[in-house]
């Protein structure tokens, strides 16, 4: 327990960055330089003709293709349409997963009976690679949107449910007792103490789930789709349009990176007390 006196004004406490600013900046510079170096190597091996454009097109060609895709499109859809098809699938999957996995996680974390019923079910399907049960989902639900969203949903559900249950189980018992001695009912305990306490874990679960979900989605689109980034990459590969393949992979990577960064920012905004001494 800390008892430091802070001459607090309105400024946020500096405890957010345990590493001094100068060092974190230099780490960032190293990462940036690595990226630049990779780009230069890419450009060098293609410009000198060491690697043929069929296997690796030059950066300029990929960039040009990107412009073409964004404006006129590929396989009847522009890059944006492919992108929004993929994003809306993961958005739907994530939305349903959060709405169901959080209550399930709370139930597992707070009730012995719910844990007995649900824990083995989740632990049974969680380690199965989603692509292994995709054929079964296709048999049951066809190759339409439902199959893809369902696949994402299942991939995201388990990490969120498990993280929520962990968060619920590790709620500070003193906070629960404090709320009880202020007259909290069981529902109020969940709403006012358990849920906010578990929020950092829930958000970590969402982060993990989104990572798994995104890779699952792209893989699913490789198999059965008429739009989406995965589909775009797959069909381009069949016609050996390598620049579209490379571009597609880059966009997929960028989206994953953006989602991770966005969630970290959300975590900082929603749970500013996390990691603080309290």
């Amino acid at each position, binding site marked *: *327990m*800390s*008892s430091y006196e802070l001459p607090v004004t309105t400024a946020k*406490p500096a405890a957010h960055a345990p590493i001094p600013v100068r060092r974190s900046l230099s780490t960032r510079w190293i990462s940036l330089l690595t990226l630049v170096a990779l780009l230069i190597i890419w450009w060098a091996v293609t410009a000198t003709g060491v690697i043929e454009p069929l296997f690796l097109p030059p950066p300029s060609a990929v960039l040009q293709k990107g412009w073409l895709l964004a404006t006129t499109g590929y396989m009847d859809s522009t890059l944006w349409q492919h992108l929004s098809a993929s994003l809306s699938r993961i958005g739907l999957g994530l939305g349903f997963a959060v709405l169901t996995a959080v209550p399930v996680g709370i139930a597992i974390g707070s009730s012995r009976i719910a844990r007995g019923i649900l824990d083995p079910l989740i632990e049974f399907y969680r380690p199965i690679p989603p692509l292994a049960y995709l054929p079964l989902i296709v048999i049951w639900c066809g190759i339409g949107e439902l199959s893809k969203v369902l696949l994402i949903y299942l991939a995201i559900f388990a990490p969120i449910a498990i993280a929520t249950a962990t968060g619920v189980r590790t709620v*500070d018992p003193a906070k629960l*007792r404090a*709320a009880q*001695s202020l007259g909290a009912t069981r529902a109020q305990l969940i709403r006012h103490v358990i849920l906010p306490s578990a929020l950092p874990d829930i958000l970590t679960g969402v982060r993990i789930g989104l990572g798994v979900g995104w890779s699952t989605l792209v893989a699913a689109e490789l198999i059965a789709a008429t739009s989406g980034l995965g589909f775009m990459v797959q069909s381009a590969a069949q016609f050996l349009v390598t620049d579209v393949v490379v571009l597609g992979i880059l966009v997929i990577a960028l989206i994953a990176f953006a989602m991770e960064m966005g969630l970290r920012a959300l975590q900082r905004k929603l749970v500013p007390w996390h990691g603080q001494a*309290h």
Partner: protein
Amino acid sequence: MALLQLERISAQYPGATEPVLSDISLDLGPQQLLVALGPSGSGKTSLLNLIAGFVEPSAGRITLDGVPVKGPSAERGVVFQDDALLPWQDVLANVGFGLELAGVSKAQREVRAREMLALVDLAGFDSRRIWQLSGGQKQRVGLARALAADPRVLLMDEPFGALDAFTREQMQELLLQVWRRTAKPVFLITHDIEEAVFLATDLILLAPNPGQIVERLSLDFGQRYAAGESARAIKSDPRFIETREHVLGKVFSQRQVSA
């Protein structure tokens, strides 16, 4: 007329052979500040948990206003050793939390919460975050939160145990002022002998194996402070020192018996 009554209370952990508390009888009346003092293992925390309703006695009866105590409730406010505040709310919302649970409107509970913050000398701290507070400030918020719900009795579980010596003395004086102004009966547990002697109107001394009351004292040092005498004058009063040494001797003789 006793407000809170414990009649021949015993308590035992499930599976344990020895009880943690044996045959405890206690009364807490209005205007009283009852302090339970004892070394670790004397069951004082168990005693507080019983009164708070967090655990049930294996024998005996606890009543508040003649009604048997069953489970935790807002009429028995608790201040914990570690603040147990909610970091996702600011100070004002923390203090008004009990009222929020009771369904009091936001405007009303904020008025009440500000009154309580002023009472513990934290006026103007409304929008501070919990992690921006010092240990002593957190305990004051905890005290304000318990008082805001207007409990019948206030239970304090080693509230100043984690504070440094200087802050602890300040908090003791603050508690006496608050106690005088709110006229709330207080039940406080501590292992700090000087704290116990200074605060208590009624002091019970607990001994371990199993936890039992070995001595009861009626004291007036806290009342003298509340009436305006200075803390230093009281604590250097020969009668205070004599009482402190007497209690200290009791605690040590008990420890030798148990060791």
